[in-house]
C-alpha cells in the first residue's frame, strides 16, 4: 500500500524528495510539500480518530485549520510531545512520528465504539451534566475516566528543551492572510512605502490560489503569486511571515502571531534555533483578509470516513497530487463546488454524480460538468451514507423547493467519497476577538464582521466576497484605503486580469432532510469534534435551551480545538429552524483567542525557568549562601529563612538562633524592608495624614513606629519612620508592602493634597540593613563604631545616630523588633557585605548568631508584635489589634483611617480582637488558621470565635506561643477556648496577653 492515491504528476509536492514518517507505529511515505493529512490520504489511511462521545470512526474532512477530526499527537520523544496537532496544518518532515489521539486499544478497533453503539441512545446532549455532575465530589473521578476514553491528547511529562521567544513589532499596516486579497492589500500599501507585516498560517503565501487551477494575468494563479511575493520580498519595509498564525486580535490594534519556525522541519528545533516565536504587533491599521471556510452539509451518517468538504477534495488533488478516493458523489448548494467534480474527473477518477439541491441550476461550471458527461441530479440531496469504516454508497432523494422535506423517490448510488458544499463561512474569528459581534449577510449566506471601532479593514472572503476578480479588487481597495488613512502618497497598482465566471444563485441550505424525522434518522453530525448532531440540537431546544449561547454550552457545539470553524453556522441554522426564527434572530456565538491551539512555550517565550520572575538579592546574599542558609521568598526577595548547622532540623536551628539572640547577640539581614526617603517642607504634615499616630513633635534624631490604614480604618502596613532633618524623613515599610505603600503615598499626594510640598523616593535598594539584637549588641557595636556615643542615656531607645561603622558611613537606629537591646545599622548597599563580615570578625567572642525570617517571627511573637499581612488581613483596625496607643484623636487633620475606624461596625461590641493564646499542654503548637469555638459539643456549623494568626514553638519560654483573634477577646482574658482540627484533635487554649516575654519592656531599655 504505497501512496495508492497519489497522482503521477501535478501539485506542489516534490516527488524527488521522499519522506518517511510513522503514524500509529507504522511507517508510511510521503513527499516534501505534503501535509501529514495529504500524506495519510495518499497512503489510503481512512480512519484518523474515534469520535468524542460515540467513538465512531472518523476520517479527514478538511484541508486547513478547520479540520475537526485529524487531530493528532505529535512527537518522537517524550519531551517533544505536542497534543492537538491538526494533520492538515502540520507539514511533513522526514522521521515525523504521530498517532491518533483517541481510540483504545486502537482507532481501527475501538472499545468505546462498541459502547457508543450500545449506548448511543443513552447519551443525549447534556448527558455529562445530567449523569456525572452529581454528587459533585465524584466529578474528579468521572472526569479522569471520561478524559481517558475520549482522548484529548496529552502534554509531555518531560521538560520541552526547545526554546521559544517573543518579539515586539510595530507597523503601519498588518495584513492577516496572504491569499489574493491580502497580497493585493500588502502590495498596494508597500508600494506606497508603508511598513507592512503580512502573515499567513500556511507554509507558502497564496491562500487558496495554491490549490486552484484558476489563471491570473493569463498565468497559473500560483505563478502570479510567486511574482507578487518576489516583489514584496524586495521592499525593505515589508516583513513576510509564512507559517504564522495570527492567533489573537486584541484591543487597540494589538495582534499576537505565533510563528512556527522549526516545527515543519524536525521533531526538535535544530541547535541554536527557536522553535516558535510569538510576534506581538501593534499596528496603525489592520487588513483582515482571512478568507472563508467551506461549510459541509448536514446529512445522515455524514461522518463516515470518505465524507469531505468539496474544496478540501480539490485542495488534495491540485495542491498535493492526491485523490482521496475512486468514486465521487458531490452534493452542493452552489456553483463553486462543481469545480471539485471537474478536478476529480481530470485526475482520471470516476464522478458518479453531482447532486444539486437547486431545481434548476445554471452557470458556466455546471455546463462544463454536463459537457464532460457527468450526471447532474438536480433538486435533490444525499440523505444518508452507507458504510462503516469508509463510504460505500449514498441514498439520494428529491427535495422540495426550500430543501425542507424529502419529496421524490430514494435512489442508491455506489461511491467511496462524498464531497459536500453548503457554501462558505467567512472567517470572522479575529474580528470577534476585540468584542465585535458578526452580522448576518443574506447575500453571503454567512456572518460577516460587524462594524469595528478599531483601525480595521476587511477584504475578500471574510466580507462574503468569493469571486476571484472581486476579491483581488477588494484587496487593492483596502490597501489604498490604508495608504490614505496613513497619509502616504497613493501609488499605482493595476488590478490583475482575471476571467469572470458566470454563476447561478446559491441556495441557503444547511441541513438535508431525511425520509424519517431528524430524531429517528441516521445521525446527522453538525460538530464532528464534539459529536453534536442535528437531533441533539433539536432536543436541546425542546428542553428549553433557546439562546444560542445556551445551546452551545448544553450540546458542547463549537467547543474543542476547532472551535466550531466547520459546524457553527449549520448548528445555528438548525437551532433557528427549530425555533421558527431566522438565523440573524437566533444570533451567533462569538470567538475568543486563540484562533488555533498554541503551545504554552510560545506564550512563555524566554520568561520561564530562571527568567520566570526577577529575583532580588541583598548585598549579603553570597554570605548567606556560603553559611548554609535556607531561603524564603518574600515577594521577589530571597531572604534567609534559617541557618541550619551540622545536620540540624529546622526546629533545632530555630531553637538555637532564638536562644542565642536573647542570651548574647543575633544578627538579621533586614535590607529588604521597604525604605522611602521623604523630603519637603510639608513632609511632617503628610506623615500625620497617612499614619494613625502623631508626627508633629518628632524631633530630629528620633524614630517612631506608625500604623497605616485604608480609608475603611483597616491596618494595611506598619513600620518605623525616622526624622533625619526638619523636612527630611526616612520611612520603612514591610518587605512585601513597599511598592504598594509608595503608590499609596503618591496617590494621595498627587490626587488629594497636591498643595503639600513633599517628595518621595524609594531607597530600598540603596541601603543594606543589618540588625544586631541581644544583650551583647552594644558591646559588639562599640568595637566597630567610635564616633557615636552608645551610652544608654545619650543614645536612647527610639533614637537614631549618624556615624561610622567598620569605617563606613552609617545610620544606626536603636529600634527593636525582638524586645532586646537592638541596633539597626544601615550602610550604603555596596558596603553591606564588608560591614556584615566585620561584625562577624568581632562577634565570634559573643557567639554572634545569624538568624533568618523564621526566628525573627518567633522573637517578635514572644513580644506580641504584629506582622502586617500575617496577623492582619484587611479586616482589623488598630483597636482590634490592641494598639490604641498608636492612634491619635487630637490631630487637626482627619487622617486616613480615622473616619473609617469610627464607622458603626468598627466601634461595635464583640469585634474580633488580637490576644495571646496559651495551649493547655505547653508542648502543643496550635496550627495557624485554626478556628476557635467556645463549645465543642455544638452541632456543625459551630459558632466560630476567631482564628490563630501566628503560632510557634518558643525555645526561650519552653512552651508554644500563639497570637490570634477572639470575639471580644480583650475582655475574655483567662477564658478557655477550643480549637477543633480537621484530624479530630481538639486543642484547648487559654486567652492571655499577647506579650509573653518581658511585659514591661525592660530588656530593650538597657
Amino acid at each position, binding site marked *: 500500500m504505497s501512496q495508492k492515491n497519489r497522482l503521477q504528476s501535478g501539485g506542489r509536492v516534490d516527488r524527488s524528495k521522499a519522506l518517511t514518517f510513522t503514524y500509529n507505529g507504522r511507517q508510511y511515505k510521503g513527499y516534501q510539500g505534503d501535509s501529514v493529512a495529504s500524506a495519510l490520504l495518499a497512503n489510503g489511511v481512512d480512519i484518523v480518530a474515534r469520535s468524542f462521545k460515540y467513538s465512531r470512526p472518523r476520517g479527514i474532512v478538511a484541508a486547513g485549520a478547520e479540520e475537526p477530526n485529524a487531530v493528532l499527537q505529535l512527537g518522537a520523544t517524550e519531551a517533544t510531545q505536542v497534543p492537538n496537532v491538526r494533520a492538515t496544518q502540520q507539514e511533513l518532515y522526514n522521521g515525523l512520528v504521530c498517532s491518533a489521539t483517541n481510540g483504545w486499544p486502537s482507532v481501527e478497533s475501538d472499545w468505546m465504539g462498541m459502547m457508543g453503539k450500545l449506548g448511543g441512545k443513552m447519551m443525549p446532549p447534556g448527558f455529562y451534566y445530567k449523569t456525572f455532575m452529581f454528587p459533585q465530589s465524584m466529578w474528579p473521578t468521572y472526569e479522569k475516566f471520561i478524559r481517558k476514553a475520549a482522548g484529548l491528547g496529552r502534554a509531555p511529562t518531560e521538560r520541552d528543551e526547545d526554546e521559544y521567544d517573543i518579539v515586539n513589532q510595530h507597523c503601519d499596516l498588518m495584513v492577516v492572510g496572504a491569499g489574493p486579497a491580502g497580497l493585493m492589500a500588502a502590495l498596494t500599501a508597500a508600494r506606497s512605502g508603508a511598513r507592512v507585516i503580512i502573515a499567513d498560517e500556511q507554509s507558502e503565501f497564496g491562500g487558496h490560489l495554491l490549490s486552484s487551477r484558476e489563471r491570473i494575468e493569463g498565468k497559473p494563479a500560483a505563478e502570479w503569486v510567486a511574482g507578487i511575493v518576489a516583489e514584496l520580498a524586495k521592499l525593505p519595509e515589508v516583513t513576510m511571515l509564512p507559517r504564522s498564525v495570527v492567533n489573537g486580535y486584541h484591543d487597540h490594534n*494589538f495582534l499576537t502571531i505565533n510563528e512556527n519556525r522549526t516545527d515543519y522541519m524536525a521533531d526538535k528545533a535544530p541547535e541554536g534555533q527557536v522553535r516558535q516565536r510569538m510576534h506581538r504587533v501593534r499596528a496603525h491599521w489592520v487588513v483582515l483578509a482571512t478568507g472563508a471556510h467551506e461549510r459541509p452539509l448536514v446529512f445522515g451518517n455524514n461522518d463516515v470516513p470518505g465524507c469531505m468538504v468539496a474544496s478540501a477534495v480539490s485542495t488534495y488533488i491540485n495542491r498535493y497530487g492526491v485523490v482521496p478516493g475512486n468514486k465521487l458523489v458531490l452534493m452542493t448548494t452552489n456553483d463553486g463546488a462543481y469545480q471539485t467534480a471537474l478536478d476529480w474527473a481530470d485526475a482520471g477518477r470516476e464522478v458518479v454524480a453531482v447532486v444539486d439541491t437547486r431545481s434548476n441550476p445554471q452557470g458556466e461550471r455546471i455546463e462544463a460538468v454536463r459537457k464532460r458527461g457527468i450526471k447532474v441530479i438536480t433538486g435533490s440531496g444525499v440523505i444518508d451514507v452507507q458504510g462503516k469504516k469508509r463510504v460505500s454508497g449514498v441514498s439520494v432523494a428529491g427535495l422540495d423547493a426550500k430543501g425542507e422535506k424529502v419529496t421524490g423517490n430514494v435512489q442508491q448510488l455506489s461511491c467511496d467519497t462524498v464531497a459536500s458544499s453548503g457554501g462558505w463561512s467567512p472567517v470572522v474569528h479575529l474580528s470577534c476577538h476585540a*468584542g465585535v459581534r458578526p452580522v448576518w449577510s443574506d447575500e453571503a449566506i454567512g456572518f460577516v464582521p460587524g462594524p469595528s471601532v478599531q483601525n480595521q479593514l476587511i477584504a475578500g472572503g471574510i466580507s462574503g466576497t468569493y469571486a476571484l476578480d472581486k476579491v483581488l479588487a477588494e484587496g487593492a481597495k483596502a490597501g489604498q484605503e490604508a495608504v490614505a488613512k496613513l497619509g502616504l502618497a497613493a501609488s499605482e497598482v493595476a488590478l490583475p486580469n482575471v476571467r469572470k465566471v458566470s454563476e447561478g444563485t446559491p441556495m441557503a441550505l444547511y441541513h438535508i432532510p431525511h425520509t424519517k424525522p431528524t430524531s429517528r434518522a441516521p445521525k446527522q453530525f453538525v460538530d464532528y469534534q464534539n459529536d453534536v448532531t442535528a437531533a441533539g440540537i433539536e432536543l436541546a431546544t425542546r428542553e428549553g435551551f433557546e439562546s444560542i449561547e445556551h445551546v452551545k454550552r448544553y450540546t458542547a457545539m463549537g467547543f474543542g480545538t476547532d472551535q466550531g470553524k466547520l459546524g457553527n453556522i449549520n448548528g445555528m441554522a438548525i437551532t433557528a429552524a427549530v425555533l421558527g426564527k431566522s438565523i440573524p434572530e437566533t444570533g451567533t456565538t462569538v470567538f475568543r483567542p486563540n484562533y488555533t491551539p498554541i503551545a504554552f512555550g510560545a506564550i512563555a517565550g524566554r520568561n520561564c525557568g530562571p527568567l520566570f520572575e526577577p529575583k532580588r538579592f541583598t548585598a549579603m546574599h553570597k554570605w548567606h549562601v556560603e553559611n548554609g542558609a535556607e531561603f524564603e521568598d518574600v515577594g521577589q526577595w530571597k531572604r534567609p529563612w534559617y541557618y541550619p548547622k551540622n545536620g540540624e532540623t529546622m526546629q533545632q536551628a530555630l531553637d538555637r538562633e532564638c536562644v542565642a539572640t536573647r542570651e548574647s547577640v543575633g544578627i538579621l539581614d533586614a535590607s529588604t524592608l521597604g525604605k522611602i526617603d521623604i523630603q519637603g517642607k510639608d513632609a511632617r504634615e503628610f506623615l500625620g495624614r497617612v499614619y494613625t499616630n502623631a508626627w508633629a513633635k518628632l524631633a530630629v534624631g528620633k524614630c517612631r513606629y506608625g500604623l497605616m490604614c485604608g480609608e*475603611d480604618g483597616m491596618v494595611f502596613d506598619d513600620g518605623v519612620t525616622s526624622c533625619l532633618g526638619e523636612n527630611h524623613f526616612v520611612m520603612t515599610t514591610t518587605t512585601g508592602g513597599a511598592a504598594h505603600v509608595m*503608590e499609596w503615598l*503618591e496617590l494621595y499626594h*498627587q490626587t488629594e493634597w497636591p498643595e503639600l510640598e513633599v517628595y518621595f523616593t524609594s531607597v530600598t535598594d540603596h541601603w543594606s540593613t543589618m540588625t544586631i539584637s541581644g544583650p551583647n549588641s552594644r558591646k559588639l557595636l562599640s568595637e566597630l563604631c567610635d564616633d557615636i556615643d552608645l551610652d544608654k542615656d545619650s543614645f536612647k531607645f527610639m533614637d537614631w545616630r549618624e556615624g561610622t561603622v567598620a569605617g563606613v558611613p552609617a545610620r544606626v537606629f536603636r529600634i527593636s523588633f525582638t524586645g532586646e537591646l537592638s541596633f539597626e545599622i544601615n550602610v550604603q548597599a555596596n558596603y553591606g557585605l564588608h560591614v556584615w563580615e566585620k561584625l562577624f570578625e568581632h562577634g565570634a567572642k559573643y557567639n554572634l548568631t545569624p538568624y533568618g525570617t523564621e526566628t525573627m517571627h518567633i522573637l517578635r511573637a514572644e513580644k506580641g508584635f504584629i506582622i502586617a499581612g500575617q496577623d492582619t488581613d484587611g479586616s482589623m483596625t488598630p483597636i482590634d489589634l490592641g494598639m490604641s496607643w498608636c492612634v491619635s484623636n487630637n490631630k487637626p487633620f*482627619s487622617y486616613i483611617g*480615622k473616619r473609617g475606624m469610627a464607622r458603626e461596625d468598627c466601634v461595635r461590641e464583640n469585634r474580633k480582637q488580637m490576644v495571646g493564646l496559651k495551649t493547655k499542654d505547653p508542648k502543643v503548637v496550635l496550627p495557624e488558621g485554626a478556628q476557635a469555638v467556645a463549645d465543642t459539643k455544638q452541632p456543625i456549623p459551630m459558632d466560630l470565635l476567631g482564628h490563630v494568626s501566628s503560632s510557634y514553638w518558643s525555645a526561650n519560654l519552653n512552651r508554644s506561643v500563639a497570637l490570634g483573634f477572639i470575639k471580644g477577646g480583650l475582655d475574655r482574658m483567662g477564658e478557655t477556648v477550643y480549637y477543633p482540627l480537621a484530624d479530630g484533635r481538639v486543642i484547648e487554649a487559654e486567652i492571655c496577653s499577647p506579650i509573653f516575654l518581658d511585659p514591661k519592656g525592660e530588656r530593650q531599655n538597657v
Partner: protein
Amino acid sequence: MLHIYCPHCEELREEEEFHCSGEAHIARPLDPDNCTDAEWGEYIFFRKNPRGIQHEMWYHTTGCRKFFNVTRDTQTYEIKEVYKIGEQPKVVAEG
C-alpha cells in the same frame, strides 16, 4: 492590551507599564468627621461601573510614577481622551 498615552511622558506606551487605579473624580470629603456612615460608605465603596463612557485613573507604574485620568468606553475599550489630575473630561456620557 491597551495602548495608553501618558500625558506626563507625552508618549503612547503599552498597558504593561500602567496600573488602573479605579474610577476617577472620587474626591475625598473635605470634612470626613462630619460625614454620616452612609456618606462615608458611598465614598469608599460605591462605584458607578457603567457600560459605556467611564472616567478612570491610571498610574504610570514603571514609567513616570504619575497618576492621570482616562476616559474609556468600557464596551469597546476605546480611549476617548487622556487628561491630568485636576482637569475635567471633555467627553462625558450622555444623559
